């Protein structure tokens, strides 16, 4: 039941809409089937699975709206769900931010995703493969594998009809030396689990762990850094690039409480805020990071450029804020692509006279929303580079840096890699600000 086909989902939604007497009605069906395995200290600590489907109905009378949900699908329950939504709508005050539902739309067809999924057995095998790599080298692994299929189907009384199914698998592993003096990390996410090789990913983390033993302390200060993609975009924590792109809301900027607010009023759309080599866009048709075809409102997504050659090209406009400002609304994408070059991380290291290689950043928190200043620390593999080579591992460091400043101090951009559903290149940045040392390993 968890994954309904397009036809089955729309048949169910048609039935739901047939029960309404509201001026406008919209129904959304979502389902998920997924499983995970977690291991640490070379043993499994958690293994589980989830299957769920739920329906949300929004009924409207004029500018009054009511919403009800259910997760049972017999006729009586569906009727009751619609009735509840209508009952609430009739009693609701008018919404000052009302915008009518949209009608039929034309959607792109993002590249299809995998049909063969991980099972409990294949998840356990991946964990076993990962643990075996570490056992052979007297290392300790801690990893997490999670993946499955989702679908979403929309239908409304204005004729909108939408359906999409997606798959995703995420794997990450931290490998530590037996004496606790070295730690390494690697991460990957794919739409097709057949492309995920836990052994290879774990070997990468294991090599980082072994080479990070004996870290030396260096003085905090401004350094040239090479930030690997995992240090720029993270799936389980805030991240420097994520904080930047997800903070590009037009309303907050227009209201004067965003890094994109303009002195004297308005926003900074059209201004050059970053190095001209910085281009950030989203593209649901990208084969490596296929995106959502539509957002929660049913708005079709498309290739959209947010930053082009350092210039802020577009901001996110909700339907209400777009209507208020007489501009097109923005369908919110689920992935970002930062344009890059052809150089690998190794190439970037080769071209560095003095600098620091960062595997991963951790506990990133916003310090000042005005300047988008973030703090956080390096983790699980930090190395000093000299004359194009990694010379020695260094102790972890705390940074205080703004991605706005960072993206103005670009030395080089590498080849983008998939991470957290985005394509992110490794970046070489000058004058990255570290403010203190950490003894954490």
């Amino acid at each position, binding site marked *: 039941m968890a994954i309904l086909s397009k036809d089955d989902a729309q048949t169910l939604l048609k039935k739901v809409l047939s029960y309404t007497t509201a001026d406008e009605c919209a129904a959304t069906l979502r389902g998920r089937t997924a499983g995970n395995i977690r291991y640490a200290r070379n043993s499994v600590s958690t293994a589980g699975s989830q299957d769920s489907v739920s329906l949300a109905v929004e009924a409207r009378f004029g500018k009054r709206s009511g919403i009800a949900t259910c997760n049972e699908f017999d006729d009586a329950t569906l009727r009751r769900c619609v009735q509840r939504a209508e009952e609430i709508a009739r009693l609701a005050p008018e919404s000052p931010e009302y915008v009518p539902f949209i009608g039929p739309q034309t959607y792109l067809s993002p590249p299809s995703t995998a049909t063969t999924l991980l099972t409990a057995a294949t998840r356990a095998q991946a964990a076993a493969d990962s643990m075996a790599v570490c056992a052979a080298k007297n290392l300790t692994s801690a990893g*997490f594998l999670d993946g499955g299929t989702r679908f979403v189907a929309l239908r409304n009384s204005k004729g909108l009809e939408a359906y999409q199914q997606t798959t995703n698998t995420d794997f990450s592993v931290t490998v530590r030396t037996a004496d606790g003096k070295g730690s390494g990390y690697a991460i990957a996410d794919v739409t097709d689990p057949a492309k995920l090789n836990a052994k290879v990913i774990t070997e990468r983390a294991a090599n980082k762990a072994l080479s990070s033993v004996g870290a030396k302390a260096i003085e905090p200060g401004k350094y040239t850094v090479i930030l690997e993609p995992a240090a720029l975009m993270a799936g389980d924590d805030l991240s420097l690039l994520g904080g930047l792109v997800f903070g590009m809301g037009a309303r907050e900027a227009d209201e004067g409480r965003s890094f994109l607010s*303009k002195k004297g009023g308005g926003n900074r759309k059209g201004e050059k805020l970053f190095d001209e080599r910085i281009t950030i866009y989203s593209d649901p048709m990208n084969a490596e990071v296929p995106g959502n075809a539509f957002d929660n409102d049913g708005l079709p997504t498309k290739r959209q450029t947010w930053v082009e050659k350092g210039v802020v090209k577009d901001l996110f406009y909700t339907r209400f804020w777009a209507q208020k400002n007489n501009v097109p609304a923005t369908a919110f994408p689920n992935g970002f692509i930062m344009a890059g070059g052809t150089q690998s991380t190794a190439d970037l290291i080769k071209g560095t006279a003095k600098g620091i290689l960062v595997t991963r950043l951790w506990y990133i928190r916003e310090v000042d929303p005005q*300047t988008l200043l973030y*703090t956080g620390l390096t983790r699980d593999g930090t190395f000093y580079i000299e004359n194009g080579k990694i010379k020695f591992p260094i102790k972890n460091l705390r940074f205080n840096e703004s991605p706005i400043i960072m993206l103005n101090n670009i030395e080089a951009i590498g080849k983008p890699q998939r991470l957290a559903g985005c394509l992110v290149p490794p970046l070489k940045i000058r004058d990255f600000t570290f403010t*203190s040392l950490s003894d954490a390993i």
Partner: protein
Amino acid sequence: MKRRDFVGLTGLATGALFLPSLPGFGHTAVDPARLLEPGADVIVKKRLADAALNAAKTAGASYADVRIGRSLNQYVFAREKQVQNIVSTESYGVGIRVLVAGCWGFASTSVVTEASLAATARAAVEIAKANRLLMKEPVQLAAQQGYGEVSWKTPLQQSAFEVPIKQKVDLLLAANAAALDAGANYINSALFQVNEQKYFASTDGSYIDQDIHRLWPTFNATAVDTKSGKFRSREALSAPVGLGFEYLTPNAAEQVRGPQGTDTVGYKLRYDMLADAALAGKQARAKLTMKSVTPGKYDLVLDPGHLGLTIHESVGHPTELDRVLGYEANYAGTSFATLEWKAKNLPYGSKEVNIVADKLQPGSVGNVGYDDEGVKTREWDIIKEGKLVNYQKIRDQAHIVGQKESDGCAYAQSWEDVQFQRMPNISLRPGKAKMSVDDMVKGVDKGIYIAGAGSFSIDQQRFNFQFGGQLFFAIEKGKITEPLEDVAYQSNTQEFWGACAGSCDQSDYRLFGTFFDGKGQPAQVSSVSHGSATTRFNGVNVINTARKV
């Protein structure tokens, strides 16, 4: 309250399809009238639980526990003069954990029938058998007495769910108006209400019925100076509490004034949201013209509403035994306070540092009678006169540190998640000698008084940290002189607690708390409080966070 009244008032909800992406929000939205319906009778729950326990034992489990859970939430969100969202959610189901030949298995179901629970118990046994292939060491479970049929309820005066939604909405809109009138341009406010109805049964012979309530009113007020393009915010100084709606009835006896010259107010077990919002509007506006701090070493005087977060990050998390052992290595990290580190009897802080763990404090969000593996809650020392004396543990960890009993620290965010080790309330004991905040400030030559929690970050082994705050005031020669901005302090956990020079007395003691403390993969959230009195730390490194972009 009649169902019809509830339904009518929920009509204020708009856009509930776009539920906030809060951790632990995966419950099904429901008609709010459902929040008042009684859950299943304990006789029914016992029969269901026995069906699961018997099936687990028959299938080969040496131990089994069953958690029949019903989670009820209501979240109300408002901005400026309008309600943004009212969301009522319910989640009902059963989680079953089994031990088979020394290996854990877990399964859950939302179909709450005897047949379904028996089948789910058998599924958990099968998972345990499958996981056995990857097992390194068999689980050793600390013995636990069965308590028979017992119950526990949060000591509250008025359930927040029984309060009409209109009253809650009116409160938030009034708070918003107070902040806007006082100088804010924008304000977002929210009221989080949680009720966990938990029934726990185990093969040890416990049948524990608990009714747990939590509440958190909060807001963020922002002032903008369009001319300069500058904006500043001040968040609520409330705390999440294990209380009913009575928390929102102002009571002067539950207010604590900050030091002279600061115009700050802290709250104990009653909160004046309107007064705090008005002050926040004024202070957010005042922040637009405050003096930027000069970096350097300062003696810090930390208000409990601020210090609680520092305690949480630098003591609460590092003393979690699962983290110490490496189970969180891939996500939240490990800990500097390893078993070897503790064995060396290394100092955690100065002799002024006495930190206690408990799940007993009235008003705290960690307050429960029993944990999620049927262990009666208690109080124990974590740090005594600056030395780490104990960790936080659950039943399968006690033997690792040579103990025979669990500390009662197991928690799962819902019936469908497996229970694991989570932080109890971790609190700094107040000073024994009488001392007011003004007395403390009098003794500081060059310092900063900090109120309210701001940005926070700590490394994955809990050494190096950086904290901001909501309000900062310079102290010179024993007096508050002026407000400051751009303040953050950086330290190392041991150095920081080593610099602890003492706390005010019990009269200043208050709780800080968090509703959404994350840990684990898949991530789960839990709620925890941290108590302290205003405390002084000498010679801490303060940085200036101002930047030009």
